[in-house]
């Protein structure tokens, strides 16, 4: 076994190795967070169903739909995950900050600075950023509109849950 052999080789190294693993397990179990470079590796361990509702984004360039499938999958991920993160970043970052505030306020004697742990974004920045991502699709200077829909898998196709329920994510200037 490795650990007894490591102990024979170097007691300090063995104690460090075991403490290293134990510390990360403690942080994970007790605090419910991870600490780089040790992570919780689920790899799709959570239960997923065919009937789960999916959030899908549709993107239009000058009112013409942008077909994502034509690009390598990396570009699709870049567009779709970025949009999903953009939609929820405010609430998400505040939640993360609250979790760490519980622990760090004791050490620092003050709460974490919101300007460091949340984004200070304006629409102009977001539009420029998304147009830059869309350069991969060869339409850098067009008016881009993004909408999110909820879909469900039914009868071998992905169908909108509700035709009315379409949410505007953003529409850029020309």
């Amino acid at each position, binding site marked *: 076994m490795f650990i007894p052999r490591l102990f024979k080789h170097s007691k300090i190294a063995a104690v460090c190795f075991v403490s290293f693993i134990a510390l990360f397990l403690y942080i994970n179990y007790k605090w419910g967070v991870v600490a780089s470079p040790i992570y919780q590796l689920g790899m799709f361990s959570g239960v997923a169903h065919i009937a789960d509702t999916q959030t899908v984004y549709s993107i239009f360039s000058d009112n013409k739909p942008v077909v994502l499938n034509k690009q390598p999958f990396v570009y699709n991920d*870049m567009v779709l995950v970025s949009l999903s993160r953009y939609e929820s970043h405010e609430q998400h970052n505040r939640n993360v900050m609250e979790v760490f505030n519980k622990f760090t306020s004791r050490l620092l004697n003050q709460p974490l600075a919101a300007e460091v742990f949340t*984004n200070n974004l304006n629409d102009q920045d977001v539009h420029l950023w998304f147009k830059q991502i869309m350069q991969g699709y060869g339409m850098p200077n067009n008016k881009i509109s993004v909408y999110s829909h909820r879909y469900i898998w039914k009868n071998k196709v992905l169908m909108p849950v509700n035709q009315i329920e379409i949410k505007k994510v953003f529409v850029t200037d020309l």
Partner: protein
Amino acid sequence: MLQTYKHIRQYAVFYLLCFAAYFGWSFWHGLTFTQIKPVFFYNQLDLTGNIMLLTKIHLYLLTSQTVRITFDLLYILLPVLLTALAIRQSPYQTLAAIVLILFNMVYAFCFSIMSFVSIKVMLAFMIVPIVFLFKKPRNFFMAVEGVRLLFILFFFSTAVWKIRAGGIFNIDQMSGILINQHNYLFINEDTSHFKSFIAYLIERPSLSYALYFAATLAEMLFIIGFFTKKFDKGLIILFLLFVSMNYLVMHINYFSWLPFLGCLYFSKFTTETTSNYRQPFNSADFE
């Protein structure tokens, strides 16, 4: 076979080649700080990462292209430097490894909160350089075994999570995952073979679940590695199969974990030496 400096050099070159291939792939797809030019971040429940954020490094990355270029350059140059120092058996190798590990942790965390790439994808670039902290073959090979154990633990734990979270007990699991992962294929006009293949799997939950079960079984088989090194070659093949299937079916690139395979390969050199190392002194030792 004795452990030698040659093996340290070989592992350093293997690490550099894996890193260069992954970085080349990332650059080709526009996945560097310089290319993505992020404007916002999406924080993670990561203690170490949030301590890093206290330095406001992420704010500099969000606002300055010079900082982004510097980060990308360091990201490429540090592994080259480390490999060069390992090849020359330089006394600065340990220092270079420490800097590389710390920098890669900062880079990976910041990149994961500013792009769509998960920090877990970059895990090998934070963990594997630990072996280069040690210059003497004996210490180096102990570190190789330690990292090998961590890798096996990481991979085996994914199977444990699938049992604990219940994914493995759900026959719809893989079909549900495939819809979620590739939903954009089904809202646009597309006649690709890939879309037909994914639709075929979604419509056959038992077949797609068989793939999920096979992947979980592959992860679970890594438990063998805790007890023996005899099957490490088999584990290497299993892992290559796993990452290839992940890339082809799920469109997730875990080839960045290839540097871990060096631990499985090079740890075979330790067995003989470790046993020799513990042998009692004989008269030859005093000559």
